[in-house]
């Protein structure tokens, strides 16, 4: 017995006295030393950090089979078995970069991301609200990015030779049927959603993921905020209306209510307008936002809104510029979006989403009436599988039920025309993303769609890849096929139409260094199956076909410099060459929304002496095509070029101890006459000439003043 005790004691003593040295060097895959890596025997105190040459050395008294662990930020964990038998060990260890690293390669072809973490990000979330000329409208701010067009009379976004309907907006993963307020022809509209709702924005001008479909040109992917941090009450007083909102935060729940009333009447009374308004645009809108944490990692988000608007004006008719027509528009829109995201295990993430929208636009053109109703219900489910760092897989499906109904009453004929359709659209998508180390990634996916109205199936493959070319630069490429159901105004008469189709090829190079970003992107787009017709609004299905086609090719440049304190600016330039033969076009031509050259310079400067941010945006667009029926060639004329300088000032102050922003903006500082295009009388006058009528902005300039107060307890 005594012997046993002695042996135990001896062993203990022995264990404590036998120390051996572990030393070596830790490098990256290229052999560069990694200083500051943590090298240790797993589960013990024994270890060391590497020095500036990547060298480490430490002593341990442990024995037997152990595991050596090396950890370093931005690299994958490294484990190696070591047998400790008393002799010193020397090790050379090379670590692989982690694809989770913030420096890792990102597939950037075609997409602009707004965020504040990743290196590849181009916009910051606040940019959308603080860009002069953007008027705190998401679409307005995106128009300072290359690849977009200035189409002043629409207010919608036009991307790379694509019409505005070719861009889809996705709210928390679900496509939005009516992202803009209803519009009177030639009067610009704006987006329905407040930019404050979203914490993440990805604007893709092409080549996007197979998760998104039904958009020929572009996808705007908006991700709404999670649980707000604290209770907030805010009040806004503007030259165009009033608003108030309140957010209440509980431990795992939050609820926000807000209401806005807008009326441009008083403003139009002060500032002369080009149009004769009988009822200046006015409207009411109410929102409810709900957030609920569900379990440890689950989150339920719900957003509901109701809004109605009205405006009425006298507009010269296209038939006779001296004759005025009364246009009266009533717009009603309800929207509900609810999603539930959760982490099912360390490998599986799930997303379920539902959205419903009901939109009614009632127009009266003198005695004629046009009532349009669109109802859409959508459900989507998606699973994401994370198979280690190498592979990410996502797949899911979306179902959409849509009802369209239009009643057109023609007074002269005392006749009602009724068109309606129902479309059930289903889609399945799957996409895999491989990331090899931190320098190479590719994404391969596909999307299968079926529409009951068209009774056709389409399969859209997508591919994109990115390669890191140096520590600060990367090359990215994207290719894909994109389908979209033709617009309601065509399929309501001709449900037998096929999907419109576009193929995208995009090559992108991006350099990010010292808070400066340079990006150049070249693209080619091939359009097929575009809708053509002999005469618009013809109820005969045979007058529509899919024989239209076209192309767009161009180059986009972007430069942003964040390195200067308090000053921030970006420059963007896009050149495009595009032609298409679609709609009523007798031949291939550049459509009227395209300017070949688009340039923007956006600058923001914070003047600390007056606590204000001053922003200036300069926009240039070369002349837009228009068709002069007095000339022989189709669409051969060009408008004068567009130059605009807009200014905004945000003054930060406090009113009765409440944080307050006074916001002022003014457009067209150069005092130029903008002409967006020309409409011509349908019939020639006595001299045999078709008379032109310029399409112009509502007023020479728009001035906005607002006071936004955040009440704190």
């Amino acid at each position, binding site marked *: *017995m005594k012997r046993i005790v002695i042996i135990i004691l001896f062993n203990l003593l022995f264990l404590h006295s036998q120390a051996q040295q572990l030393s070596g060097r830790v490098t990256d895959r290229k052999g560069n030393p990694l200083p500051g890596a943590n090298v240790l025997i797993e589960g013990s105190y024994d270890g060391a950090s590497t020095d500036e040459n990547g060298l480490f050395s430490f002593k341990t008294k442990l024995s037997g089979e152990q595991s050596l662990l090396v950890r370093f*930020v931005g690299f994958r964990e490294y484990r190696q078995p070591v047998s400790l038998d008393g002799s010193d060990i020397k090790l050379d260890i090379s670590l692989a970069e982690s694809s989770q690293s913030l420096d890792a390669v990102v597939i950037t072809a075609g997409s602009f991301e707004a965020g504040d973490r990743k290196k590849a990000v181009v916009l910051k979330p606040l940019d959308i609200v603080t860009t002069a000329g953007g008027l705190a409208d998401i679409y307005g701010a995106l128009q300072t990015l290359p690849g977009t067009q200035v189409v002043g009379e629409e207010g919608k976004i036009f991307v790379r030779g694509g019409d505005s309907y070719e861009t889809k907006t996705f709210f928390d993963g679900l496509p939005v049927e009516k992202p803009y307020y209803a519009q009177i022809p030639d009067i610009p509209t704006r987006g329905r959603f407040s930019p404050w709702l979203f914490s993440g924005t990805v604007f893709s001008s092409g080549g996007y993921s197979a998760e998104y479909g039904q958009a020929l040109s572009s996808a705007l992917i908006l991700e709404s905020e999670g649980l707000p941090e*604290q209770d907030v009450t805010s009040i806004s007083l503007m030259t165009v209306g009033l608003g108030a909102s309140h957010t209440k935060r509980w431990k795992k729940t939050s609820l926000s209510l807000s209401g806005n009333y807008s009326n441009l009447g008083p403003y139009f009374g002060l500032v002369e307008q080009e149009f004769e308004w009988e009822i200046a645009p006015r409207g009411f809108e109410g929102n409810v936002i709900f957030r609920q944490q569900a379990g440890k990692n689950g989150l339920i988000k719900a957003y509901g809104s109701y809004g109605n608007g009205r405006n009425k004006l006298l507009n010269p008719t296209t038939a006779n510029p001296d004759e005025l027509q009364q246009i009266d528009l009533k717009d009603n829109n309800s929207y509900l979006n609810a999603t539930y995201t959760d982490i099912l295990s360390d490998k599986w993430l799930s997303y379920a989403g539902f959205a419903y929208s009901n939109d009614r636009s009632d127009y009266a053109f003198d005695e004629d009436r046009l009532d349009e109703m669109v109802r859409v219900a959508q459900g989507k489910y998606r699973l994401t599988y994370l198979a280690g760092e190498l592979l990410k897989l996502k797949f899911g499906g979306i179902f959409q039920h849509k009802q369209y109904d239009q009643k057109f009453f023609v007074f002269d004929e005392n006749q009602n025309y009724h068109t309606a359709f129902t479309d059930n659209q289903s889609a399945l998508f799957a996409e895999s993303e491989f990331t090899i180390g931190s320098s190479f990634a590719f994404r391969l996916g596909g999307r299968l769609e079926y529409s009951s109205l068209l009774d056709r199936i389409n399969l859209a493959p997508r591919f994109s890849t990115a390669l890191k070319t140096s520590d600060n630069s990367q090359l990215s490429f994207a290719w894909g096929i994109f389908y979209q159901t033709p617009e309601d105004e065509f399929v309501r008469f001709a449900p037998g139409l096929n999907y419109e189709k576009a193929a995208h090829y995009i090559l992108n190079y991006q350099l990010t260094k010292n808070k400066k970003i340079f990006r150049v992107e070249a693209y080619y787009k091939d359009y097929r199956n575009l809708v053509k017709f002999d005469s618009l609004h013809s109820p005969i299905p045979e007058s529509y076909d899919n024989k239209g086609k076209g192309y767009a090719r161009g180059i986009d440049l972007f430069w942003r410099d964040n390195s200067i304190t308090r000053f921030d600016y970006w420059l963007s330039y896009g050149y495009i060459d595009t032609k298409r033969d679609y709609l009523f076009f007798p031949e291939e031509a550049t459509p009227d929304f395209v300017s070949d050259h688009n340039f923007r310079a956006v600058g923001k400067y914070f003047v600390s002496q007056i606590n204000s941010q001053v922003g200036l945006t300069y926009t240039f667009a070369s002349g837009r095509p228009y068709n002069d029926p007095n000339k022989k060639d189709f669409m051969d004329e060009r408008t004068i070029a567009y130059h605009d300088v807009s200014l905004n000032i945000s003054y930060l102050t406090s009113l009765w101890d409440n944080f307050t922003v006074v916001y002022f903006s003014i457009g067209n500082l150069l005092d130029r006459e903008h002409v967006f295009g020309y409409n011509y009388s349908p019939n020639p006058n006595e001299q045999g000439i078709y008379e032109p009528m310029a399409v112009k902005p509502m007023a020479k300039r728009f001035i906005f003043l607002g006071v936004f107060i955040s009440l704190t307890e």
Partner: protein
Amino acid sequence: MKKSILAFVFAIVMMAGFSQSDKYLQSMKAGIEEISETETHTDMLALANRFERIAGAENDQWLPWYYAAYCNTLACFMGMDISKVDQQLEKAQAALDKARELEEENDEIEVMQGFIYQAGIIVDPQSRGYSYSTKSNTAFTKAKSINPDNPRVYFLEAQNLLNTPAAYGGGPAVACPKYKLAAEKFATFKPESKIAPAWGEEMNEGMMEQNCK
């Protein structure tokens, strides 16, 4: 005889156990003392690594993770390359999340959470200033709801206020009363143990000297 041998063996095992916890306390104390003596961010990160090693060996102690988070965050204020800060803070956050798994509802953990958010501001004060200071304030409010006498909350709140422009309701005029309040709390504060969080008093005094005259 048998009994005495058993007792002896038991005593040895006990001793080994004691020496284990003794080793823990000694290592922690040595590490904590070194924090205030460390002057470069590389040394601070090496210290963070050391706390992480202790944390890996002591499965049920939250304090090593807490100090690993603290050192990783402090390093960001010590002349580190700004482009590396986000990644370092991610590491700090991961360590703090581990601490939180072991110790729920602790005011010191919430204080550290707020400190990590505060550090994130230095990457891009203009665009992060508002949102990150809101996040840190939320954490501080939570810390105060658990323990209204934690002096570090008031010290870091004062830091937030000092770095906020006067127009947003910040500046020395509002920050100084907070530093003073923090100083009062420090004066009466008694750490729970020799290795429990007790930092901040000197920094608080230094800030008061520099900004509140």
